[in-house]
């Protein structure tokens, strides 16, 4: 569990820094990526955290910057989870004593505007927009923004090695950000 080092941080930040290039014009590839993102959204809506985590590589990061594009080497993030902390996050939600999610949020996620961009070699970057409707204790709230996924092909499928969740209100005070976005 020692993959988060200086080189990892540098690669992480640079891979999400620039979206100015052209998306890959390949409808089949885009459909494949879209299916992965929609499956991810459904598994989270269903609370199937083991199945959700199985979409991720062993050396993954789930990252919610606290400022637009914020650099995790320089500042704290809303969330910055390596595989270990992501397992912690799920463990905590399952204790039954994580009061911020007891009762749990009822959610539906919409994923759209999916575009696929090249990264290095066979690794892809996927950019998509999201809207999460979050019902908890009688109130519905909305989370919105865009995601950057970094996908790596492995044994005939794409694994998520990084998911960067860019909340449009990432630098504002957030009410109960205890769900996995």
């Amino acid at each position, binding site marked *: 569990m020692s993959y988060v*080092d200086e080189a990892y941080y540098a690669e992480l930040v640079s891979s999400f820094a620039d979206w100015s290039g052209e998306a890959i014009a390949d409808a089949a590839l885009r459909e494949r990526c879209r299916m992965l993102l929609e499956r991810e959204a459904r598994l989270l809506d269903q609370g199937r955290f083991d199945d959700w985590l199985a979409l991720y590589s062993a050396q993954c990061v789930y990252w919610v910057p606290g400022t637009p594009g914020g650099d995790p080497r320089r500042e704290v993030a809303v969330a910055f989870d390596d595989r270990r902390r992501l397992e912690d996050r799920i463990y905590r939600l399952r204790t039954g004593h994580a009061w911020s999610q007891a009762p749990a949020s009822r959610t539906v996620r919409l994923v759209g505007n999916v575009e696929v961009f090249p990264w290095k070699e066979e690794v892809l970057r996927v950019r998509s927009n999201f809207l999460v409707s979050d019902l908890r204790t009688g109130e519905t709230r909305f989370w919105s923004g865009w995601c950057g996924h970094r996908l790596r092909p492995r044994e005939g499928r794409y694994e998520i090695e990084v998911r960067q969740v860019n909340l449009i209100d990432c630098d504002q005070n957030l009410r109960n950000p205890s769900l996995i976005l």
Partner: protein
Amino acid sequence: MNTSTFFEGLVREDRVHRSIYTDAAIFEREMTHVFGAVWVYLAHESQIPRNDDYVAARLGLRPLILVRDAEGKIRALYNRCTHRGARVCRQERGNARTFQCAYHGWTYFNTGRLRGVPWPEGYACDFKDGQFNLAQVPRVESYRGFIFGTLNLEAPSLENYLGGISGQIDQWLDRHPGGKVEVREANRLKFKGNWKLAYDNAADGYHVVFSHRSLLEMENRTQQDPTKGMSFYMGKPDEAPMYVQAFAHGHHFKDKRPGIDKRPGALWEKEAPHPGMAFFEKKIRDRLGTGAGRALDLAAAEAVNINVFPNLSILGNHIQVFQPLAVDETDTTWYATAVCDEAGELGGAAEDVNALRLRTQEAFPNFGEVDDAVNFEEIQRGLAACEDEWVYMHRGLGVPGRVRTEPDGSLKAPATDEVFMRCHMKEWQRLMASEPKISVLR
């Protein structure tokens, strides 16, 4: 009605009335009689390091521009155009010598002085008159980087206001190279509840094993015996060596250090795993050898809570600020801090320490504070039951031997005691029944 009697009726020795958390008129009075009357924390100097830097701040509900002017003087300007009242600065931070109102173009220097208005010949008045300058907080002072302001000309000096709690701030700072820290963004949370619910919680050692049960379980999930994180609360926290201490003016302190080995590196060993731990810990140990313990302890959460009434709570490595927005809405902003080692006390390891320290600071807001915040919201919901009038804070009251008076007049008790709440509520009551001499400078 006699205001003294009224507020005496709301704050009893052992309990407070629900309305102090729910009544909009009481909230409105707090904005002058509490937030207008005492020294309120505004920002940290590291947020405005250069001349002409500014950051948005608030004093109660008043929008402020906290600026370091061209001569380096820190000022808290009202972010309110003298003409029609619009906010003249709409950015959260930046560097500017002047602020121009976007509505009619009135322009002010960052000293607050009016620079000019468009087509002044249309006015009969003299704009050199100070009455058209931006209002500003008349007293702004720093304590070792922490900037406070008060509108009350009769308030004691900041040093006297802080009193005994300043010694705890000193200890917290002095563990860092150069005795200082810098702010590195924040975990920003909000809850639908009254601001005092957060301040009541700030030194509460009674809630920890219940409200944070999931965090304690998570931190120790791979341990044979729980030794990580806040495990010192487990068992019988009443009998643990940690304590809570209540000072004058509503400040308080919770010290969990007596339950932790004093050996350098022992605090770090209590940290549960965090991203980057394996790599950066090894790098620091390779670089510093036997001196690595002190450096690593700086990446671990310091085991104290230092609470300065009404809106500042220094805990772990965070500078937490309570910002009331409405009677039932509060922002709690957990500013992360980093070490800044100008003299090289850490042998070049400062940025590696920060690489760990930023990650450790994300843990509590993510896995702890979110649960407290919903508990605060559930109090606010529960208090809608209007016939059930009282909220109790009498743990330890009248139990022989629990609360001791220290030579400096502060009160010390086991960390699960609510004596600190009783003390700040008494101060709140005194302030709400008093008439502060509030003024602004122009």
